């Protein structure tokens, strides 16, 4: 791909960080400008280690408060086990949100959401398996796609979600086999004959189901086993030799027991269409929904070539894409509407707002954001179908599907609560936007026009209209001359800890943020 060689200012750096992170701060954008594109891209493409979710809810009766539950058993009584499961699910939801809220300069969380959307399995009956599924996603987030598909195929949460765990010699279940081809690897092309979807045929689905027979899941909600595992059971495996269709060159897959699924996936990956399929998805997620003929013949082809040349390693593809001329083209800036999680955490992360109370309160607060995102159409561990969220794939509307006349009101209401009306109350504490700290960390908080420029640079993808900026500045200065703001801000600096000076400053910046979050500019990325 043609590398980007143009200017490298806050505009380009902000575009890169907003697309690869949930909500960069002003400082992160400034650092990216200083460090340059290449080194910022390299820094983004690293997946930091994380800690496991911990017990915080009183219904968690097995794991001790504050300690991980992912290796704990369940109570024997099914109703008690369900109660514990609910507590674990809440822990998982809070943990996922906390990861996004505490992201540093890394593409990790955006990649995890990408893969959660790609291998769109819901949280299952056992949160330990759901957690393992998320760990698997993270471990392969920028890794080898072929190996990722293999590991996902025998992941217990996925085996349960798409009935792989009931796919046996005696009663083959095609559910996973079908999605593996249709949604996870090669994709469904136009139907060109009876049961022929260009890239594969119905007979391949049937053969793949047989190939993958014999995996069961053990330990589900167990009161003795501390882990949910996939167990290969030879007597349930179909040992016949399976023959694939002409789309796979009529390849045969002889019995290979527990590893047969991997043999099959290797055959599928011999088809270059797999690379095209996943690169289109990456493009739609990171760049633009519109796959024009020219994008298809240049960008997608080049991404796919890189993927194949690197033996299906994902990192080199993104390294090239994020440093390409096309990625920074003005036509694709602001080309997507923010999803609910993007909208919520760009607001929170951009203002460096974290709960910072006690463990249980922090989890509960993150969970509140989880449910808000759910209300707005994006529950992290629960995509609406195995195809993922429609906004990522549904033609012709794509990201427009994130908002409707109802959701726009919810977005506005939420941003008002967070910035102005006390935020999210839990256990007597309120999590609201840290407007004052945000202001203090801008490049020159005492100059009204600079404050507004900085805010727009952080939160909007393109130049904000000068009239809109004037409106924002008038809100900041309460329509007084600019120097009055400077005086007020300097008084606040000179009187640390005195709320008589800090409160008015805080209110003005809260009002500005509240207004900004209600501008369409903020809702695009």
């Amino acid at each position, binding site marked *: 791909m043609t590398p980007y060689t143009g200017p490298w200012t806050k505009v380009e750096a902000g575009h890169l960080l907003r697309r690869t992170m949930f909500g960069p701060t002003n400082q992160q954008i400034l650092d990216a400008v200083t460090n340059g594109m290449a080194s910022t891209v390299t820094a983004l493409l690293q997946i930091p280690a994380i800690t496991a979710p911990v017990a915080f809810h009183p219904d968690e009766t097995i794991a001790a408060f504050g300690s991980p539950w992912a290796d704990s058993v369940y109570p024997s009584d*099914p*109703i008690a086990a369900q109660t514990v499961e609910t507590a674990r699910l809440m822990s998982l939801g809070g943990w996922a949100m906390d990861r996004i809220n505490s992201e540093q300069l890394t593409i990790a969380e955006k990649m995890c959401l990408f893969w959660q959307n790609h291998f769109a399995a819901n949280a299952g009956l056992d949160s330990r398996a759901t957690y393992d599924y998320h760990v698997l996603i993270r471990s392969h987030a920028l890794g080898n796609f072929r190996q990722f598909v293999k590991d996902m195929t025998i992941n217990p949460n996925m085996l349960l979600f798409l009935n792989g765990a009931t796919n046996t010699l005696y009663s083959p279940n095609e559910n996973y086999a079908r999605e593996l081809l249709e949604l996870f690897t090669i994709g469904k092309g136009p139907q060109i004959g009876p049961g022929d979807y260009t890239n594969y045929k119905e007979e391949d689905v049937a053969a793949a189901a047989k190939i993958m027979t014999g995996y069961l899941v053990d330990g589900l909600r167990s009161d003795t086993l501390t882990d949910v595992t996939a167990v290969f059971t030879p007597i349930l495996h179909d040992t016949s030799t399976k023959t694939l269709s002409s789309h796979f060159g009529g390849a045969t897959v002889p019995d290979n027991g527990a590893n047969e699924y991997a043999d099959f996936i290797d055959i599928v990956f011999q088809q270059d269409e797999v690379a095209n399929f996943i690169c289109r998805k990456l493009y739609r997620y990171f760049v*633009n929904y*519109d796959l024009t003929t020219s994008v298809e013949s240049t960008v997608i082809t080049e991404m796919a070539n890189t993927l194949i040349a690197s033996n299906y390693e994902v990192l080199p593809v993104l390294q090239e894409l994020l440093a390409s001329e096309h990625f920074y083209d*003005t*036509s*694709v*800036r*602001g*080309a*997507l*509407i923010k999803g609910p999680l993007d909208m919520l955490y760009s607001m929170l992360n951009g203002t460096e707002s974290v709960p910072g109370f006690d463990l249980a309160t922090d989890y509960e607060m993150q969970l509140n954001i989880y449910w808000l995102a759910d*209300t707005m159409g994006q529950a992290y561990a629960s995509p*609406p*179908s195995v195809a993922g969220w*429609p906004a990522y794939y*549904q033609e*012709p*509307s794509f*990201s*427009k599907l994130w*908002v*409707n*006349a*109802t959701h*726009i*009101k*919810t977005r*506005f209401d939420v941003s008002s609560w967070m910035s102005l009306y006390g935020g999210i109350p839990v256990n007597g504490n309120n999590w609201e936007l840290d407007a004052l700290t945000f202001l203090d960390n801008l490049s020159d908080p005492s100059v009204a026009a600079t404050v507004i420029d900085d805010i727009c640079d952080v939160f909007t*993808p*393109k130049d904000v*209209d000068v009239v809109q900026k004037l409106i924002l500045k008038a809100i900041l200065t309460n329509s007084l001359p600019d120097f009055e703001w400077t005086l007020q801000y300097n008084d606040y600096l000179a009187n640390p800890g005195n709320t008589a000076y800090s409160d008015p400053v805080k209110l003005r910046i809260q009002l500005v943020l509240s*207004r900004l979050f*209600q*501008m*369409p*500019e903020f*809702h*695009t990325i």
Partner: protein
Amino acid sequence: MLNEMKIQSIGKKLFDVAGFAEDRVLVIIRLNGGNDGINSVIPIDQYANMTIQRSNVLIPQASALGLTTEVGLHPKMGGMRNMYNDGKLGIIQNVGYPEQNRSHFRSMDIWSSGMIDNPPSTGWLGRQMDVDFPNYPDAYPNATYPDPFAISMGYETSSTCQGLMANFSHAVNNPFDVYNLASSGVLDDGTYYGSHMDYLATLIDQANAFGAQINGAANGGSTLSTMYDAGNPLAVQLQYVAQMISGGLQSKVYVLNINGFDTHDSQVSAADTTEGTHAELMKRLSDAIEAFQDDLMLLNLEHKVMGMTFSEFGRQVASNASLGTDHGDAAPLFLFGSCLDIDIMGSNPVIGNSVVNQAGIPMQYDFRDIYASILKDWFGVSSGEVQTLFEHSVTFYPLVTPCGVGINEEDLAKEGALIYPNPATSNATVRFTAGNEWVKIDIYDINSKHIAEVYDGTLSQGRHDIPMKLKDLPIGEYIVQIKKESGLINSKLMKMK
């Protein structure tokens, strides 16, 4: 279906009529989770075998509220029993679809879309609205269509109303909420960014406009029944619906939701099978619907509104060991309103004398045919047009009476004109065709005395629905006379209290 709205707004301008028979509303209540049909509509003649299959959740026969000698309701459904006795509750037995999918999600997609083989992204109502209102949401709302086409109570739009480009339903958690979102003057500069900015600006305007209409209707409407229980969330939402309808909101569909039907365990209380989770749900459902119907009667809106419940599946015949039931197949569906043409349609499910692993209730009626019949008879969509919305060959059932509905073109041609409802109480509509000609409509009593003039003017080519205000007319028989250049039509009208 909804294209009649144009006529209503003309009618509103020409006549000072409080309500319109044509202005029909469908209220849909979704029982989320899969309702246990056998414990809702109890097959009284199957008790011997039910005892074998589901003794731990079985309602004692003496407690069942008998509707007929063979069919009873759950003991908590006294409200719906009263409605049945008043002819305002219809039961369709064993509704489902071929090869039932027992996944909540997939099955709910199927029920929402009305498609089985490839549930599309559009809903069954959304597809019809796409036909009636192409290019939605651009240019909506407008002067002719100021209101949302459908209301979904809560925060989510309803997937039954998903159209190709947007969802036709507007989510309303509380109609008294004020919408005052900052509008935006952004312009579409032709870029991807510009198109999205324009789209968001449209949504903001739409939210404000719909919000104002809904506020206006809620504040202008009223609710008269004293039967609503403020502690019953479904009742509260139905009361909001009554408030919006009586306030003149022209939304055609209201979708409500009640959660908690996935009763794998503790469906009934161990001590008393007439109590427990399911009993509480049935009580809420039944009480809320009874209060709503009572309100509609008091508001004189009964002829305008009908309701329907649905659930993604029924539950298995045999209960499990946890005092619960697992995902099954077909289940009964309730219709309510004063214009029903059925009481109980279909037969009791036959319960076998031994447990068959995972057996559900086989389907007798395809839910898609219920939808189709409602579209045709309640909303007046032609049968040909209805057929295009579904992938199977549609069978129509007479579910609603010509309470102003069920009018087909053949009847119209034969009769010359149709009056509905007939008998009527306060408002009725006369439907006829005209050919771009002068038309005069008058009401006479049986002694040929002129009582009222309804219309005098020129009407365009096509079918027309002219509302008539009958509130002040004494009870009795009348003649509605339509004088056209092309001929004279006399139709009888019965005015009731």
